[in-house]
């Protein structure tokens, strides 16, 4: 399998008053083409920092982040990002939001409309195509953001706790829809979450991170078959993996800097 994303010995520090905060230390991770990787860990483990570095919104203090073998130098349309706060442009309708990246890419109105409508249908928002974001519920906003990210046809999707602000029921529904979408339109996905169930349900591989300093603690393969449905969620195999990830997240051995 081709390596799509390669993170090599990445370290990111932030200056504090009299010391420096180590958000990431010695983080190395390879993600294959079309793999779905979830990253789970306690708050402060640097999972969002890792995503920002890959998105090109942040740069590592040392180490390298490569996509398709090239260093990440800034944001690019081949890497779609989905934010926890939706980040829809509130003055644009759902369709115009989805068309935003296409307009930037220079597509003409007919092509934009066609592509946008395809992805709006994909996330089931066709009835709301001309609605403003303020009229949408949280789940619908995030579906719109997913359509917007997909529309520019990125080969990578970086998702930063996208369902974190949603209620449990909406979250489960969106997880299933996301997997369904991913099965139909395969992409390399890096999905950040603090929800262990979500991490196991979605992933081919779960990366468990630890805090102080932010580092990779464990990597767990998830062999559950696709398509994953409610049954998969209730299966003994799922429960076993869930326990393993849970244990890894909440009973972490003390880190190098944990004694401070």
């Amino acid at each position, binding site marked *: 399998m081709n390596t799509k994303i390669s993170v090599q010995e990445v370290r990111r520090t932030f200056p504090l008053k009299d010391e420096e905060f180590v958000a990431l230390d010695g983080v190395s991770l390879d993600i294959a083409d079309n793999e779905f990787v979830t990253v789970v860990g306690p708050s402060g483990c640097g999972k969002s920092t890792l995503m920002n570095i890959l998105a090109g*919104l942040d740069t590592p203090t040392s180490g390298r982040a490569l996509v398709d073998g090239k260093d990440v130098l800034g*944001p690019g349309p081949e*890497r779609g990002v989905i934010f926890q706060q939706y*980040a829809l442009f509130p003055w644009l309708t759902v369709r115009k939001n989805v068309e935003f990246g296409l307009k*930037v890419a220079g597509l003409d109105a007919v092509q934009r409309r066609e592509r946008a409508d395809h992805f709006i249908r994909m996330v089931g928002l066709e009835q709301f195509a001309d609605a403003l974001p*303020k*009229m949408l519920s949280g789940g619908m906003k995030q579906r719109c953001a997913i359509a917007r990210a997909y529309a520019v046809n990125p080969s990578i999707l970086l998702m930063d706790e996208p369902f974190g602000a949603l209620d449990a029921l909406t979250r489960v529904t969106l997880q299933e829809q996301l997997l369904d979408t991913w099965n139909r339109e395969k992409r390399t996905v890096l999905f950040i979450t603090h929800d262990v169930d979500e991490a196991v349900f979605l992933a081919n591989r779960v990366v468990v991170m630890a805090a102080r300093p932010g580092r990779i603690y464990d990597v767990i393969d998830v062999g559950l078959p696709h398509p994953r449905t409610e049954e998969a969620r209730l299966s003994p195999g799922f429960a076993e993996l869930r326990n393993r990830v849970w244990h890894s997240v909440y009973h972490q051995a003390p880190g190098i800097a944990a004694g401070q």
Partner: protein
Amino acid sequence: MTGTQNVPRVEAPPTSALSRPPAAAPPASRRRLPRRSTLVVLNALSIVGGIACWWLLARAGFQFPTPPEVVAKAMQLAANGTLQEDLLASLARVLTGFLIGSAVAVPVGFLMGWYTLARGLLEPWIQFFRTIPPLALLPLVLVLLGIGEVPKVFVIFLAAFLACVISTYQGVVSVDRTLIDAARVLGAKDGTIFARVVVPASTPFILVGMRVGLGSAWATLVAAELLAAPAGLGYRMQQAQLYYDLATIFVSIVVIGVLGLVMDRLLLLAETRLTGWQERR
């Protein structure tokens, strides 16, 4: 008091209630319509009551002209063309000053919000002049620019500019970082981000600044005309004062008030149109 708190909700575009899924519609929506009409009735009662009080006071021996006398005076001033002449003179001044002021304020505000260099160089001057009422500069401006139209338009320009530039600057500075990031990851470069994200996101701030600027411009105008003008509503009042012509003063006051209100409402309408996308909480 609950009635006044409801005003912004009532002014929200009606489409929002219609296109929301039924489950999300607030149960209070049935009660909104009666509240609005209640408000209008109360407003009307208040206006009629106020005019009645004025009339009574005039009758009771205060030196006010009665409402019919003021209306008669207005007709007379309109008939001989004085009212129109004053109105046009004042409107021309305020609109020129206000439009130039806003037109300069918006790009300057954007520059200050976007570039540290512009902010560093311009901010001290704007903060300094902001603390001086534009009228306080009038004596100096009159000396330097003479008594023609230019000094009056200039102080009005200054009033509108200062109100609008601060607001625009605030708008640019407070644009949500995530929206800029969202545009960047969709491939947008600085120019596109500016035009498609920063400008629309700052529009509510700009419009608020323009409304404040208009109020400020209007106040400055009348005072400037009181000091030096060949025509205008302020000039007319000042003349009437010399001849103890209270009816003319009343006409001018009412006209100034009504014009100010109309212009404010027009801007409010533009605001609702342009910034209806905002989530109101």
